[in-house]
Each structure stands twice: as structure tokens, then as C-alpha cells.
């Protein structure tokens, strides 16, 4: 029974990873993240293969995973080179900039409204207290004062 349970779980995780990779591929416009999402899809496939390999007690699936690794490395090499060249052209990693090639009568796609960038709170760095000023006490200092 555990054979089937393991198989089913691996297939499920593989499918989930594949789908998450798909979502990312659809929604991210950063080319590197898109590439990363395709790698995530490949990881899902790899998990499925490992599950099958274990189920059948067969090495074929694992062989395929090895070659998936190799191919992923090759694709990474080519892809990164390509991305760098593309970046040189536009100064951006946005895939949506590359839509010049399309049907002649199609208007270019534009985002209707740029999404707001969430503001990050300004980081607060520890500062040295100026000379002659008593540093503000924190809970920490009061708590551990008697230990010092």
C-alpha cells in the first residue's frame, strides 16, 4: 500500500510544482524569473519521475532526471547569454518590452494601470549615542542589567 501512497504523493507534489511554475511563467515578466519558473516546472517533472522510478523499481526515470539536469544546465547557459544580450538592448529584463513582432493590425499591449510599489519602511540602523547623552533604555537593557 505504501507503494501507491508514495507514488501518489510524489505525483501530487510534482503536479503542484509544475502548476506553480506555470503560474509564475504566466505572471512574471522578469525574464530571469520566467526562466526560473520553467526550471520549477522541470523540477515537478523530476519529482514525478522519481516517484515512478521508485514505484517500478526502475532506473529509467532517474536516468531521465539526470539528463534533465544536463539539459537544464545547457538551457541556462544559452538562456542567460540571451537574457544578457536582450538586457543590453533595452536596459530591462521585462519580457513585455519584446512585443514588436506581432500581427500588423494589433495594438501593442499596455498595462492598464501600473501596480503600486509597496513602500518599505526605512531601515533603522543602530546609532551610537552622542557623547554626554544617556542612551535610551530598552527592555532588553533593563532586563539584563543585573546580569552585567
Amino acid at each position, binding site marked *: 500500500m505504501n507503494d501507491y501512497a508514495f507514488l501518489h504523493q510524489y505525483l501530487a507534489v510534482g503536479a503542484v510544482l509544475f502548476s506553480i511554475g506555470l503560474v509564475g511563467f504566466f505572471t512574471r515578466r522578469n525574464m530571469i524569473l520566467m526562466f526560473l519558473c520553467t526550471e520549477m516546472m522541470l523540477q515537478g517533472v523530476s519529482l514525478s519521475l522519481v516517484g515512478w522510478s521508485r514505484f517500478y523499481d526502475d532506473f529509467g526515470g532517474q536516468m531521465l532526471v539526470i539528463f534533465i539536469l544536463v539539459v537544464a544546465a545547457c538551457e541556462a547557459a544559452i538562456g542567460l547569454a540571451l537574457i544578457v544580450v536582450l538586457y543590453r538592448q533595452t536596459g530591462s529584463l521585462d519580457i513585455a518590452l519584446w512585443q514588436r513582432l506581432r500581427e500588423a493590425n*494589433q495594438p501593442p499591449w499596455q498595462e492598464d494601470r501600473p501596480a503600486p510599489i509597496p513602500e518599505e519602511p526605512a531601515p533603522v540602523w543602530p546609532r551610537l549615542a552622542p557623547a554626554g547623552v544617556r542612551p535610551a533604555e530598552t527592555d532588553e537593557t533593563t532586563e539584563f542589567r543585573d546580569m552585567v
Partner: protein
Amino acid sequence: MFGIESLLVVTVVMPLAAAVLTALFGPRLLRSQSHWPTIVALAISLAASLLLVWQVAQEAEATHTARQNEPVPSAQPTSHSLGYERTLTLWTWTGGGEVGQTALSVQPVQDPLGPPPRIEVTLRIDPLTAIMLATVLTISFLVAVYSVGYMHGDPGYWRFYSYIALFVFSMCMLVSVSNFLLLYVFWEAVGLCSYLLIGFWYQRPAAAAAGKKAFLVNRVGDFGFALGVFLLWLTYGTLNFHDVQTGGQTQPGILGQTFLQQPEQYVGGAVGTAIALLLMAGACGKSAQWPLHVWLPDAMEGPTPVSALIHAATMVTAGVYLTARCLPLFLAAPIGPLVVACIGGGTALLAALIALTQTDLKRILAYSTISQLGYMFLAVGTGTALGVTAGMFHLFTHAFFKALLFLAAGSVMHAMGGVIDIRQFGGLRRHLPWTHTTMLFGCLALAGVVPFAGFWSKDAILLAVGQQEGLVYQVLGWAATATAFLTAFYTFRAFFRTFYGPERIPEETGGHVHEGPPWMTAPLVVLAAASLVVGAYFEWTHGFAHFLAQTPSLCLAGLALEGPRAELVSHSQVALLSTLVVLAGIGLAALLYLGSRTVLEGLTRASAAVGLYGLSYGKFFFDELYQAVVVMPLTGLARLCGWLDNQAIDRAVDDVGAAPRALGALFRSLQVGLVPFYALAMILGVLVLLGALMTG
């Protein structure tokens, strides 16, 4: 070498060669010298045809003499042939079935599928053909020479000569084939050439419209002709003129010896009448007889040499030729000759009346042509040897003087810079002496003044009509006489208004009025001389009638071979009457156009008051009538069909045809150029397949 067959082939083939040569080399190589192939070829053909006439005359005479000398065995009436003919079968086209299967039977073949279609591509020569060939080629040659001057500098020069040569070839074939199908083919071919030449200046809307009109009106007649040919095929099982010997058997031709010697074998009754009327319809179309006469005046939009050649001398006489050639068929029909005569006489009078008031010189001549053709039909329609001879004789003489008149009119037109309206010029005799003189000859011939050619032939017609019994022919005779008067009047009206009276030069001449070049005047002189002499010569020698009488289809038993010659008394009566009438016409014209204007104006006003003038000037409103009765309903129907076609059928077809376009637009609209979108589309495709897997 100069055997009759080879002469015939040479006569026919030379124009074709010239046409091909000019068409091939005209545009690039010959250019302004494009007339040479045609002129040379026509000269050769003319010589060959004259030789042909001479040889045919010799042989026919020999045959005739031999036949008269030998005793006619009454027991074997078919042992000798009627008339003289030679045929030259180039090849036989058999559309299925074995040659010689056809049963020898003079009985009409009733089964339409019985005999296999068997078309003999055969040339024939007999006196009728020989006369036609000689006439056609003479006029053609002279017109071709004339055109060198007239068409000089035209951008379509080579095209003109190519068409002319093609026309001459077609016309020669038309008169020399021995088969109804081929006759029909070349009937259409001359129509095509006519169409091409009327619309020669196709850039002009009027020329294009005239060409179209001629073509369409001719189609009406040709349709009848085609039906007639079908009916002939169904009735006689063959379309050959002549008998064909196959395997020792004789397949009788429609106009062959077998039938001619037993003329009672011709189918009469309703079928025979139908054949005659259908053939007559074709003849009416081609020869511009009422009610299909409307195209010929408009055909004057073509170049004047074309008018002279095709629309006066040669092509329009094809109908007369057809009628004469098929005379046995007409005679077999109860009312055939009468219909022909009525149409001819009526048309003659009608056209003469219209010609009275026309102001376009060429159109006057065109109506005159229609009128004279009516004369010929009237003559042939008498159905007697005298009548047919007279009709053919008139055809022969008319070719000369009408060509002369047209060429002279062309000369005037040439000098006037394209203006042809007689109201715009006058008193030209000093500027155009040659034209004046030659046109005077032509007018005299047309009016029928002694001793010009027209006198003799018209007299013969009047005589032939006058000799017929019956009220209809009497009426027709008086109509013909009236037409003679009218002819004289309108001819000289045009002549006087052109060459006499106060001198008026239209502005289009640019003040430079001059006689045409020798290329143009020489044919005028030749034709003028011919107009003077041909009638008198042949009338006095009786050579024409004697020669023509050797034609097989005119040797019918019903037509006495040597029919009753006109008695001298009646001949002189007719001649006297016609001369008086003609002189009256000329005198009236002189009175009206050389004398005081008041008489003319009074007369015009008077006739206009009772509507006669308008009727004549409006050409009896035949064009308008046809427009209202035929063209408008047809146009309406066509509009309706077009609307239905556009709105219903085309719309449906367009919608079907637009489906790929709409699909394509849909698919192309998916090509937005974005990678994520493409990936999404791929996954959606997979989703659909997964859905298919889940559900089924």
C-alpha cells in the same frame, strides 16, 4: 499550275497569310509599311480571281455547249449535271461514326441521331462564287490602296491592315465554302471583323458603342441563321451544298445535283417556310434589312475605307449572296420569295425616306446602301431567273459605285479634317476637283442615269419586278420606282450641298483644304471609270446573265435556264419611266439646293408641320422603338437579375468566402506578440484536451 483548284486556294489563302504576317510583324517591324503585305496579297488574289473568272467562264461555256449538243436521254435525267461547279475537299471531319454509313436516300432524314455528323471542308467554285470573289477582291484591293493615304499615321495602322486582310480572307471563304456550317463560321468571322473595324478607334465611346450595337443586332439575325442551319441538318441530314461520293454511293448535298434535278424533293410546307424565314433572318441581319437595319448607319463610326469595303460593297451583300445561293430553298417554301421581296422593297423605300433628311454624309450613304440592298432583295425575291440575275447584277455594280461614293466621302472627310456633316461645308468643288468629278460619277451611277452602271442594274430590277404577276409585286414595283426618285433626290442633295453653293470650310481643317494623295485619288478614278462602264458593258454583251446562269442552284427546273428575256418594249418603257423619275429627282434637288433657299425652307417647314420631316430625320424612330420595346425590358430584367445576383447569390457566396477571412482575422487577432499570452494559449489548448480526456 493555274488549275482552277490551285487558283481558288491561292485566292483564299493570300489574304490570310497577309493577316498573319501583318499581325506578327506589324507592331514592331513593319510599322508604317504595314500595308505592303495586304496590298501585295490582295493584288495576287485579285489577279487569281480574275483568272478564275475567266477560266470558269471558259469551262462553263464548254460544258454548256457540250450539254446542249448532246441529246438528252429522257430516261436518264440525272446523267448530266446542271450548271457548272467544281469542288475541292480539303478534308473531311467526321464527328463519330463510320464514313459511308449514311444510307443513300433523298428522303429527308427525320431521325436527328441517324447520320453521323460529317463536315466536308470543301471549297467550291461556280459562277456565283467567281463573281463574288472578283467583286470582293477588286473592291478590297482598291480600298487597301486608298487606305494607305487615308489611314496614314494612325497608331493602329498595322492593326487596320491586319483586320482588313483577315476580313478579306473571311469574306472569300464565306463565298467559296460549300457547307452551311462553314458558311456560318465565316459568316461570324466577317461579323467579327466588322465589329473589330467599326470599333477600330475603340477609345471613342461612339465607336465602341457602334461596334457593340452592330455585333448585338447581328447576333439576332445570326441566331435565326443558326436555327436555320440546325433545321437544315435535321431536315436533310447534311449540311453540304454539293453531293458527296462515298464508296460508290452518293450522299446528296442540299444544293447538290441530286436535289436540283428533282426540285420537288425539297421540303416545303411549314418546315420549308421556317427554313426560308430563318435564313432570311440571318440575311436581314447581315445585310441590314428591316427590321435589323439599325446597326449599319451607326457602323459609320469606323474608318471610311471600312465603310466602303465592308458596309457598302462586300459584307453587307452576304445576305443577298445567301439568298441567291439558297434560292431553291426559298422557292420550295410557299411564301419564301414573297417575304424576301416585301422586306427588300419595304426597306428600300424606308431607307430612302430616311436618307432624305440626314445631314451626315456617310449616314446618307449608309441609308442609301440599305436602300440599294433592299433593291437587291426585291429582285431576288421575285424568284425568277431574270430577278436573280438583276439582283446579282445590281450587287455587282453597286459595289463599284457605292465604294466610290464612300471613298469620295472619305476624301471629303479627309480634306475637312474629320468633319462629315454636310451643313458645315459647301462649295468644295474648286478645292477638291478630283473628288468632285469622281463623286459626280458615283452619284450619277447611284441615281441611275444613263449610261452609268446603276441605270442598267436598276432597270433590270424594275423590269423583273414589273414582270411578276400579282398585286403585291405591282405595289412593290411602284415603290421601287418611287425609291428611284428619292434616291436621285437625296444623292444629289448631298452632292450639291457638298460641292456647290456658297463656299464654307469648317474650322477643323485649319484653313488647309487639299486633295488627298495619289494613293487616295487613284482608286477613285479607277472606280469612277468602272462605274461608268461595267453596267453598260455587261448589259450589252449579256455576259453577266449568261455567266451567272451556269450556277447550279440557279439552274433549278423552276427557273428556266434561258428564261424569257425581257422584251424590248417593256424594257424601253421601264427605262424611260426610270429616267424620267431620276431626272425629276435630280431636278428637284437642283431646284432646292442650287436655287433659292426660300423654297427649301418652305418645304422643310411644311413637311415639319405634318411631322414628316421629323419622322424622316428621326429615322422613323426605330432606334427609340427598339430601345423601348427590346432594350429597356431587357435592361430591366438584367438589372433585376443583377440585383438578385448581387444581393442574394453574391452575398451568400461572399459570406462563404468571407468565412476564411473572418477566421483569419480571429486567429490573427490572437497574435498579440506577448510571450506569456502565447504560453497561456498553449496551456489552454492542453486544458481543452484534458477536459476531453476527463469527460470521455
